[in-house]
């Protein structure tokens, strides 16, 4: 299956990429995406370390969330609006 990954704020700056397409095995989860991305290099390991949040199709989700073909996944630091 095919998904899109977006990054924001520090996660975007540290990874150096803000919009990526990934081909994944069926039943892949957010955790699977993290494994794929951290395999790209230490900059991605750093970008996804610590208390990073994840979203699937514009809703916050946990790392065990199962993905579907066409999903948009996003990684970003804890939010600081207000």
């Amino acid at each position, binding site marked *: 299956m095919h998904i899109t990954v*977006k990054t*924001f*704020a*520090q996660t975007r700056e540290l990874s150096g990429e803000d919009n990526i397409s990934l081909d994944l095995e069926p039943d892949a989860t957010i955790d699977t995406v993290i494994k794929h991305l951290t395999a790209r290099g230490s900059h991605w390991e750093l970008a996804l370390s610590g208390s990073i949040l994840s*979203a699937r199709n*514009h*809703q*916050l989700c946990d790392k065990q969330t199962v993905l579907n073909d066409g999903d948009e996944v*996003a990684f*970003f*630091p*804890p*939010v*600081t*609006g*207000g």
Partner: protein
Amino acid sequence: MSVNVFALIQNEDFSHAQLHSQLQSYANAYSLGGTGAIVTFTGLVRDFNSQGDIDGIELEHYPGMTDKALMLLVEQAVARFSLTAAGAVHRIGRLYNNEQIVWVGAAAPHRQAAFDAACFLMDMLKQSVPLWKKEFKGERSQWVETKASDDKAALKWMASK
């Protein structure tokens, strides 16, 4: 049933008076005479952080998710505090010291629910709406870190019902 909620993400400044009157007209359309209290909050850009003076902030957001997350929060506030209307506006982009950043408003039959709802909206906004602040001074800039006190404020609402 009439629509009694609004949530806006925008670059441009907002008018407190206009938003207040929009909230009141939504509340009247929802339940004429049923509103006894309106509480609003406006957040401004401070001219300092823990290290000293700053020139302003840059707000990044997640287009497509930010407006949905803000609307969800407003709807949760209406349901939780039995509001007659609620609204929230958050600005994005580059904002200079003393500019308005955020506005929330809650209308309710009684004042305590309106006060509580305004606090809930601000505390939870700082937890669930994908916005990130970067403070700048001259050419230098740094991301704002989350505060433990903000996490604690949101957890209080999540733990109680």
